[in-house]
């Protein structure tokens, strides 16, 4: 009854929800069945330059490890077996929990979507956190040492310093050229630059449109809640450079625009806006539903906005989608041009900047707090991910200095044994009390 009484805004389900589910399903099938059609399978990270292998042909299918590992984490029983298989192999329990789930799936030779684990024909990774390159180094060993592997180092310092230091972009571009030679020798295929250019354009489109969608969530009430965004942004982590994803994001953007126009809310009783930080404990997304009882909605996170979204400062001083090379009319006829654009575009990814200083991330969070009209933030101290938890304690201090209420909860995105649901609910209660928001039971009075 309470929530009924509080409802202020109209809500309705997303039209393109099912399409998102289908795309995801199809993606994992295509990868598994690639060989049936004489196609190629490759594995890599959600941040890999997936546009590059697309130059090998239109029948080349990726499996990106983080979202795959997250799907494992959804299945608690399977995840438990995966984590244990990895531990039994002698790997530490405090390693990246995505990595441990993924390794377990390889060790058990079980694919989360049925059947044995489909071995990739080659591995194509990128490296910004300690675990990225080691991830597939170990996979190659677990798979017998024969799978060709290339990894691009993108840790060249903050993008803000790139201007005037073009050798830093060049370092990435040089590796991408080296990588294309690798791809040709690994697959015996002739590389097609036209396909690469096409893919780069799609990547710029999908990642900038995702930022546009995130911007729409500045609206009160928010048209999307973070729990929903997870299921949508994931497509970008699967295959940001594919036409399907780019097209889907444009369709989604139009629908979200329409929701904004009609004042449709994700959470009807929205009265407290927060964002979270780092990946959530995937097995426990219901904590978001618990927050909603208080009318508290997470409108996103730097993670959901900027893991895939590519951003820039807009003339009016706000944060918005980065202008694509197509819009800017930047020439993209040659392989080298395409690779330069691709490298520069990715290096500007906000979610990569905090690797060099927590201040960069703190500033972004403060900016989001202002532009997205937040009442507070919930930081997930994520034991499962060193990379995104990097500097999180300093972020917390910076937010408190800026007098933004912060709640911290400790957990693990992919290892449920490190998340305590009851304790977390209790923290949310305390946090809501400190924000002066009464518990659901009292709302009627």
């Amino acid at each position, binding site marked *: 009854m309470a929530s009924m009484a509080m409802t202020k805004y109209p809500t309705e389900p997303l039209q393109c929800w099912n399409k998102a589910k289908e795309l995801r399903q199809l993606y994992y099938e295509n990868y598994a069945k690639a060989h049936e059609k004489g196609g190629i399978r490759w594995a890599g990270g959600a941040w890999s330059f997936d546009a590059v292998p697309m130059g090998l042909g239109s029948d080349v299918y990726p499996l990106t490890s983080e979202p795959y590992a997250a799907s494992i984490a959804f299945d608690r029983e399977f995840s438990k077996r995966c984590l244990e298989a990895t531990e039994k192999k002698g790997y530490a329990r*405090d390693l990246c929990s995505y990595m441990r789930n993924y390794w377990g799936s390889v060790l058990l030779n079980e694919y989360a979507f049925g059947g044995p684990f489909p071995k990739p024909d080659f591995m194509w990774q990128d490296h910004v956190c300690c675990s990225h390159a080691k991830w597939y180094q170990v996979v190659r060993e677990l798979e017998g040492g024969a799978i060709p592997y290339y990894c691009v180092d993108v840790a060249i310092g903050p993008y803000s310093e790139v201007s005037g230091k073009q050798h830093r972009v060049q370092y990435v571009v040089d590796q991408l050229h080296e990588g294309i030679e690798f791809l040709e020798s690994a697959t015996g295929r002739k590389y097609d630059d036209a396909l690469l250019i096409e893919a780069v354009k799609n990547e710029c489109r999908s990642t900038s449109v995702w930022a546009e969608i995130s911007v729409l969530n500045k609206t009160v009430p928010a048209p999307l809640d973070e729990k929903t965004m997870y299921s949508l942004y994931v497509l970008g982590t699967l295959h940001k450079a594919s036409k399907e994803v780019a097209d889907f994001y444009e369709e989604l953007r139009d629908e979200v625009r329409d929701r904004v126009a009609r004042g449709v809310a994700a959470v009807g009783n929205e009265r407290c806006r927060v964002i979270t930080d780092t990946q959530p404990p995937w097995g426990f997304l219901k904590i978001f539903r618990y927050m909603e009882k208080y009318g508290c909605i997470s409108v996103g996170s730097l993670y959901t906005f900027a893991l895939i979204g590519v951003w820039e400062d807009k003339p009016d001083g706000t944060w918005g989608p980065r202008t694509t090379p197509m819009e800017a009319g930047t020439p993209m006829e040659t392989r080298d041009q395409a690779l330069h654009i691709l490298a520069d575009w990715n290096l500007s990814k906000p979610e990569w900047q905090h690797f*060099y200083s927590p201040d960069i991330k703190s500033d972004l969070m403060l900016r989001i707090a202002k532009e997205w009209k937040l009442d507070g933030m919930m930081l997930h101290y994520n034991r499962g991910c060193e990379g995104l938890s990097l500097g999180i304690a300093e972020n917390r201090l910076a937010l408190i200095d800026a007098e933004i209420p912060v709640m911290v909860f400790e957990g693990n995105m992919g290892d449920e044994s490190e998340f305590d649901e009851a304790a977390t609910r209790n923290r949310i209660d305390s946090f809501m009390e400190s924000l002066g928001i009464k518990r659901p039971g009292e709302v009627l009075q």
Partner: protein
Amino acid sequence: MIERFADWYTARHDYAKAWKERTGGKVVGYFCTYVPEEILIAADILPVRILGSHEPQSVTEPHIFGMFCPFCRDCLAQGLKGRYDYLDGIMIAQSCLHIRQTFTSWAKHVPLDWSYYLPFPNHVQSQAARPYLIKELGLFKEAVESWTGKEISDADLDRGIQVCNDFRSALHQLYEARKADDPPLNGVEAMYAVVSGQLVDKTEHAAAMSEFLGTLDGRERPETGVRLMLVGSENDDIEFVEMVESCGSTVVTDDHCTGTRYFWNNAQPGEDRLASIADRYLTRPACPSKDWPTRSRVPHILDLADRWAVQGAVVLQQKFCDPHEADTPSIIEALKNKGIPSLFLELDVTVPVGQFKTRADAFLEMITADDLF
């Protein structure tokens, strides 16, 4: 003789302050051994590696999430407690995420004249790394020049390279001596000798070392126990090595960034000084965070084990050190295939003697107990 190294190790802060007093030069504290000390020395700067103090502390929790390694937190504690108040600047060469946080939090909360982040390439096995690093070393050189207001000439660089090479060569001779059936020094002494080299003026250290090497033959030899090598992450923990050797072992070599990885190879002098330095750091025995796609550490470690005739390996790492955790099982496996047993231990700020001594004792019994069967 060895006492001098031990004194430098224990009184490192007094040394640095005295050096500053004496020379009027600048002291730079650095994190990670990928920092090109040649360039700092060329600028008459004293580079000191920032290490922890192995005491439990409560000051870093607000700054570094507890899932990061104890070493990076112990180091930050030193800064927050003002133990390095004599530093003029700090710098880091990009490697693992853990120690990077020590640098960023230190730069943020401990007021300093200068700090520098050198985005050292991780893909050292790629052709692309060399031209990139040479340019970065150039930028770094310029940054030092504009800070000190003094140009670094080729002659200066040659001196920096020479000083570091001589210093490393001396340590190599020390390690050569440890190949003997009855090494003239034990692991604790060797640790004092190598780690102090990361804390003091390298010319002074090299001089002291050659003097010490001269006394080795006449030296009364400590009793030789089971020949062990230490493999893993940062380890400057004297108490730990004392514990392991007190159980009846002698540490004869190591693969630590506080040990051989730090001084293993020299820079080859050439026309392009920065290129020589770049090559030196790109080809040194790698930190696991840079050792990919090929894991070059394994053959290197097996080679050390072979040449120093080790009977067993203690594989240890800072708790939560992901790069090492990703290597450890493969290393243990490779050693096993060579017939070298290993004992795995996790390092924390302090050594839980009770638990670790039992493991160490049992490990050594395993290697030696034959005569009782």
